[in-house]
């Protein structure tokens, strides 16, 4: 190996060693092959915890039941029983601590999501009672006349 020809090879090997040393300090210790093998499981293990610990925002209707029992019970008797509270009111997150008041969407667009007429054969959409927004009290909020917690209740 005395020949000068191998000199560049030593330089290259030196650079590779530097990269490997840098790697030792840079790559997190729990980075490796996971349960799904090298192809599908090459990752930093602790990232799974990051996703598991992500903050839950939607609490579900059972969370609202105890404090808002009147609206809740009314809803249970109506065709809107299928709609979770947080669909129309925003996610509870840490309500009543934070946020103290939940938004209530009152505009027409909310109701039109289901009640705009789209009579498509084979789709459940065709079975929902609908109104033509251009002719049915245009410009007026639906909740002026209809109670969202019990839409069958007598018109206000």
């Amino acid at each position, binding site marked *: 190996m005395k020949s000068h020809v191998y*000199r560049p090879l030593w330089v290259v090997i030196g650079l590779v060693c530097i990269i490997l040393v840098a790697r030792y300090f840079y790559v997190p210790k729990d980075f490796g092959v996971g349960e799904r093998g090298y192809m599908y499981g090459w990752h930093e293990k602790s990232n799974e915890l990051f996703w598991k610990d992500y903050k839950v925002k939607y609490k579900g209707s059972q969370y609202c039941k105890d404090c808002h029992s009147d609206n809740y019970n009314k809803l249970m008797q109506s065709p809107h029983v299928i709609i979770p509270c947080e669909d129309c009111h925003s996610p509870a997150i840490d309500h009543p601590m934070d946020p103290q008041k939940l938004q209530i969407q009152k505009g027409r667009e909310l109701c039109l999501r289901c009640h705009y007429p789209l009579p498509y054969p084979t789709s459940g959409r065709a079975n929902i009672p609908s109104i033509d927004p251009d002719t049915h009290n245009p410009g007026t909020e639906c909740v002026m006349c209809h109670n969202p917690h019990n839409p069958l209740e007598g018109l206000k």
Partner: protein
Amino acid sequence: MMVHGELWTAKELFVYPNEYIYWSIQIVMYPFMTGLVAGAFVLSSLYHVFGIKQLKEMARFALVFSFALLFVAPLPIVLHLQHPFKGINVFMTPHFTSAIAAFGIVFFTYGAIVASELWFLYRKHFVEVALPLKEKQDKTIGEWLKFFIFCTLTLGVYDISEETLKRDHKAIKVLAGIGIPVACFLHGYAGFIFGSVKANALWMTPLMPVIFIMSAIVSGIALCMLTYIVTMEIRKFLASRKMTPTQRFQSKEDLKGVEVSVVRMTAKYLLFFMVFAISLELLDLIFRGYTAVKSWDVLRSVIYGRDFTDIFILQYTIGNLIPLILFLVPGLTIRRTIVGVILVLFGVFMMRWNVVIGGQAFSLSFAGYMHYHMPIIPHDWETFKEGLFGAVSVFILPFVLFWVIAKVFPVFDLKESH
């Protein structure tokens, strides 16, 4: 709030909500630049490995240019990455099931080969510059810098006897030989990046790596020819301006300008690879039309409809057919070569464009289209790096680097022994 890609994408008919043209002009530039790298190296190796004497001048030129290009080649990627500083993750935790992960190993290996080959080629020159500077007692700052650079470059080897120079020559031959498959791999993997994406109906074909390699060699040879002609002509012009009328009769070397035989020889190789490249592309197209699988309807409407001008006029006719005719007609002149070579480079660029942008011209739904409106005038960093000016900067940079590197690795007037 703008999503990345939203600014330059226009959606037509039914396109999935999350689809945008994410891989834009810089992803077109990347295979273009690595293609130039690989092509320049193959040209250089044609002399060192196969001993084609007429290519001797071109060989050294091509190798230095390949080195300058090598530093610029990762730049489009760095500009494209949303987190360029985390780009070293590719070297730190490479996931080799991905073609892009090969980037680290392949580039490093290729860089090592080119750098080593250059070292052997220029070693004698380094020693000849470093030794007299070593003797000199009071050096200026500039001379100190020069001494330091050239001393490091010798890597501590000062022996320039006949024996060692012969060993240098053999090492160059070996490196050039190894380098050809590595250069092919360098660009083949770029083709594999596209060819292996089964989700994209236009990209998915086993021919993609081969098409990319062939057009890379074409572009490399074309660029070297162009830069060679331009550089020689500039030298001739500068030399003739500096000389008095009597001097002009004495020094023939500088006034020679471009040597037509060298250009004609190189053009023959250019032609060979051009024919190979275009044959593969036409084969791919014919196969797709013949087998007419599910994606053929939308692909046909893109290839023969929306992108007809880009593909058939710009790439195939202006970028391939016309240069082919220009080079085939006997009695090739320098002027005709310049036009032909520029058209070839344009054709190779359009090939990259038609693959990258063309592949994103249709939706995954096969029922919609996306139009790419490249940002022209930049108004922020994003529109600069992903727009026309970013692409032009990437293209110009190798020439600037070449000028800098040629100060250390002189391409002309080098007294060689082999």
